[in-house]
């Protein structure tokens, strides 16, 4: 989408709809000055600093590293600090809402607890088997398992994928792409002792088996990860495990 040229000497303003309130809140309209290279985070910050200080929102690094600023922009979950207004504004309107599928605390702030609870339920934590007396583990960097980990380890838990996944919307207990993606990295970790217990945690109707390959997660992940691939890998392992009687 071509950048609209904005003359610095005469900045225009444009309407922005921002979600206010809780789950039964509503969109409020704000008039925000338009600048070149403006990000959605710039817009939200402007509203909070110059128009309405009661607007609640989250951000931290503002340079696309932490994932704290994730919100729903024109219906799609994105990092607002890395979303240029010009790139997403359709028909001149910008709509900013909190992430979907997570309880709204207020305005653009959601409760991330369910997201991380499911991370824990998927046994998304490393389970060590060695002690300080053991030698370092030797992991071949080009082994298939390590390459599988490399492809998906960069997840920073921003919840954009979780928010984008319709299965999460349809099944409240579905663990979601991020938790399953993390479980996949651990399943492939030769040092990890999670074993079949982790496979059991990610099987079931609430686990990897309910993924319908919408690929919304892969489509939206700001780090270009592919949770769909990780979940497919888990499906294979779960199928193998149950057929061999290990589940």
């Amino acid at each position, binding site marked *: 989408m071509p950048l609209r040229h904005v003359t610095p000497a005469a900045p225009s303003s444009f309407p922005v709809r921002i979600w206010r309130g809780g789950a039964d809140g509503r969109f409020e309209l704000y008039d925000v000055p338009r600048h070149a290279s403006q990000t959605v985070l710039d817009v939200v910050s402007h509203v909070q600093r110059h128009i309405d200080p009661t607007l609640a929102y989250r951000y931290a690094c503002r340079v696309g590293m932490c994932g704290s600023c994730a919100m729903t922009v024109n219906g799609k979950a994105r990092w607002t600090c890395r979303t240029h207004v010009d790139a997403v504004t359709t028909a001149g309107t910008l709509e900013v809402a909190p992430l979907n599928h997570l309880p709204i605390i207020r305005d653009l702030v959601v409760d991330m*607890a369910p997201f*991380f*609870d*499911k*991370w*824990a*339920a*998927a046994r998304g*934590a490393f389970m060590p088997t060695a002690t300080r007396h053991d030698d370092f583990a030797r992991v071949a960097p080009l082994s298939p398992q390590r390459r599988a980990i490399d492809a998906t380890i960069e997840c920073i838990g921003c919840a954009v994928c979780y928010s984008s996944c319709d*299965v999460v919307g*349809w*099944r409240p*207990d579905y*663990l979601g792409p991020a938790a399953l993606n993390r479980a996949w990295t651990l399943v492939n970790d030769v040092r990890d002792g999670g074993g079949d217990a982790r*496979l*059991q*945690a*990610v*099987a*079931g*109707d*609430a*686990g990897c*088996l*309910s993924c*319908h390959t919408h690929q919304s997660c892969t489509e939206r992940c700001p780090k270009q990860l592919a949770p769909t691939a990780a979940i497919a890998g888990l*499906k294979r392992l*779960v*199928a193998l*495990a*149950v*057929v061999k009687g290990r*589940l």
Partner: protein
Amino acid sequence: MPRRGPAVPSARAAAWRFVLQRASAAALALCVVVHLATIIYAVRHGLSSAAIVARVRGNAVWPAFYLLFVVAVAIHAPLGLRNVADEWLGLRGRGVNVLAVAFGLLVLGMGLFAVRTLAG
């Protein structure tokens, strides 16, 4: 110490449903190719009922093929519908399992009857 999340019920049952769904899908992939090919063949050649019946009853492979087809569908369709019922109609737990099994038995019964009629 992370908070404990929701327990995952009956992983083994769900995993078996998944395996059956995918295995029957693979079987059906072969069956459907054959089925579509025969249907298109019959339509293109304008086969009469006598011709179709004669071909089907003339070779023991056909009834066996359709038997496999029916069994695979009786496994595959209910499991698929079960997901749809759960996700889009909110039917969960024992109720949806009963419905799935009932539909499977219905399809199996009707299908076996059709195969028997086909085989003559």
